[in-house]
């Protein structure tokens, strides 16, 4: 297992041009017929159906949970989504609404989305979400401290929250849009993985620049290198800005070619999204009926 913590000041440098070119090549693959159908169903099964808004109500969360269980009843045999992702105050309601469906409840925590609070508040935030029954915790890293070069602070914070989580799986949100460069994304990924993250996640979805394919590629490569070094698998969750089925398929192609089949399930890969589900459902119905679909006939979350 993990024998030594590396020096994070010397994490590998990222070739920006190379990464962007490689990420662009994944979008040139053409998936047709059965492969496309299976890809779409797999992507659907990997979604963390998310609502993270100030205006969220019990009713909204209940409705979202119903949607998670009944994605589109007109299409029998569909998988469910992987999880529902909400604020800590909504975890109890979500847990109740999902019942025994097997769909997990993920809760954001640690002063999401900015992470600008004290360690104590973050711990209590996490404990509250867990006490309400959250199966997974999505934490944010302290980007300010990271930019100041206080990598130990960031590392310790993640390790502390991981300790609080216990059995619950911990997703660490890097908020790559605020990190600025691929080098920093790689560094933050390494810190998170060595500190005990179960997932590394791109974004909160709260700033305009969210998940992109190159950023996800950098993080997938970090996961691969970590796996070679330690033998430990880390899961990946791109979030924000993935709203089209076609793009989701591109991500799956990338996942398969970088990490391989071992990661091609919802234990090791998730999409953080809300409108993606409907687009995938519309594509699936298109495949089945041969007719392009309209959003009018699919439930808004």
């Amino acid at each position: 297992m993990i024998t030594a913590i590396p020096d994070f000041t010397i994490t590998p440098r990222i070739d920006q041009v190379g990464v962007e070119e490689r990420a662009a090549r994944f979008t040139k693959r053409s998936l047709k017929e059965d492969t496309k159908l299976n890809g779409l169903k797999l992507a659907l099964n990997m979604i963390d159906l998310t609502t993270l808004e100030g205006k969220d109500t019990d009713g909204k969360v209940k409705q979202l949970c119903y949607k998670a269980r009944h994605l589109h009843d007109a299409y029998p045999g569909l998988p469910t989504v992987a999880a529902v992702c909400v604020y800590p105050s909504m975890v109890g309601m979500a847990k109740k609404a999902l019942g025994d469906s097997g769909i997990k409840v993920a809760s954001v925590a640690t002063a999401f989305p900015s992470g600008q609070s004290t360690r104590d508040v973050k711990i209590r935030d996490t404990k509250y979400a867990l006490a309400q029954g959250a199966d997974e915790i999505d934490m944010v890293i302290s980007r300010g401290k990271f930019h100041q070069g206080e990598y130990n602070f960031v590392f310790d914070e993640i390790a502390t929250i991981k300790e609080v989580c216990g059995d619950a799986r911990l997703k660490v949100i890097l908020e790559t849009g605020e990190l600025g460069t691929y080098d920093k994304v790689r560094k933050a990924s390494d810190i998170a993985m060595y500190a005990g993250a179960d997932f590394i996640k791109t974004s909160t979805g709260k700033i305009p620049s969210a998940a992109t394919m190159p950023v996800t590629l950098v993080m997938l490569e970090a996961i691969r290198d970590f796996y070679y070094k330690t033998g430990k698998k880390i899961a990946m969750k791109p979030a924000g800005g993935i709203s089209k089925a076609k793009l989701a398929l591109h991500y799956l192609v990338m996942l398969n070619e970088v990490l391989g089949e071992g990661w091609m399930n919802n234990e090791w890969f998730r999409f953080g999204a809300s409108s993606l589900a409907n687009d995938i459902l519309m594509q699936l119905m298109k495949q089945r009926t041969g007719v392009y679909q309209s959003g009018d006939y699919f439930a808004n979350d």
Partner: protein
Amino acid sequence: MPEFASVGLKRTKRTKRTKRTKRTKRTKRTIILNIMTSRLSVLKTYKIYIGGQFPRTESGRYYTAVNAKGVHLANMCLCSRKDVRDAISSARGAFGGWSSRSAFNRSQILYRIAEMLEGRKAQFVEELMLQGSSKSAAEQEVNLAIDRLIYYSGWCDKYQQIFSSVNPVASSHFNFSALEPVGVVTVVAPQSSSLIGLISLMAPVIAGGNTCVIIASETKPLCSVTFAEVLNSSDLPGGVVNILTGKVSELLPHLSNHMDVNAICFCESDAQQQKMVRENAALNVKRVIIHDDKKWNDDKSQSPYLISDFQEVKTTWHPIENIGGAKAGY
């Protein structure tokens, strides 16, 4: 350039070796010079109009438009199912914004389209003549097209008053019916006309707050793309009108069975195709409007009823108290 230069040089040397006369040498040089300076005219690439952009068809296919004399007019995009899909999704995207604009603003924009068309009249006349019209017929068609835009521009904020109503009901309710645009409309423009048919169908659709995808005449497609350039420079938001070129027989199934289309306007008399349109429209109860023998080159072929073809009537029951002696007296 260097290639030409070296060719010229070689030839000069060869002529010297073969001892040709000075005169021949000069003639050759002149020819080479002519090749280098004579100008090739730049032919216009006719592309399609989707979401306020001018892309080429995603299929990469083209067809050649020829006039009755067999003269090659242009290479046109032979659009595919996926172009239809893209156009419909951008029409859907534009619908919210366009339908919620004030009627007066829509009127201003239609007027602006007419203004821009007036400014490019000569180009349309030339294109119509290329496609077989006489000069006078072409001028008449363009003038009529401009006038028709002005006509519908005027109707934008008036048809509601003509077609809406306050209805008598026997309870304490204020009951009224008002018009709302149906949504996304696909329009198959008449094959026989290049400009006036397209405009006569488009104007009432967008005047009523709908957005549309239009398939231009396959045999006379030039004006449609040039008209898209007019639209693009006249304050019309991208996606409100999308114009595709290609084979009606190929695109018609996708125009009529797409679930995100709310109405279809079809202008061919082919009974088989009309039947297919009606059957496909039943999938999501699209409204079907068929004009199979209408003459668009005519003052009488414009009417506010063409706007109401693409309007839905919404009736509202609004509870009222009996105030004073007033009561529902029906």
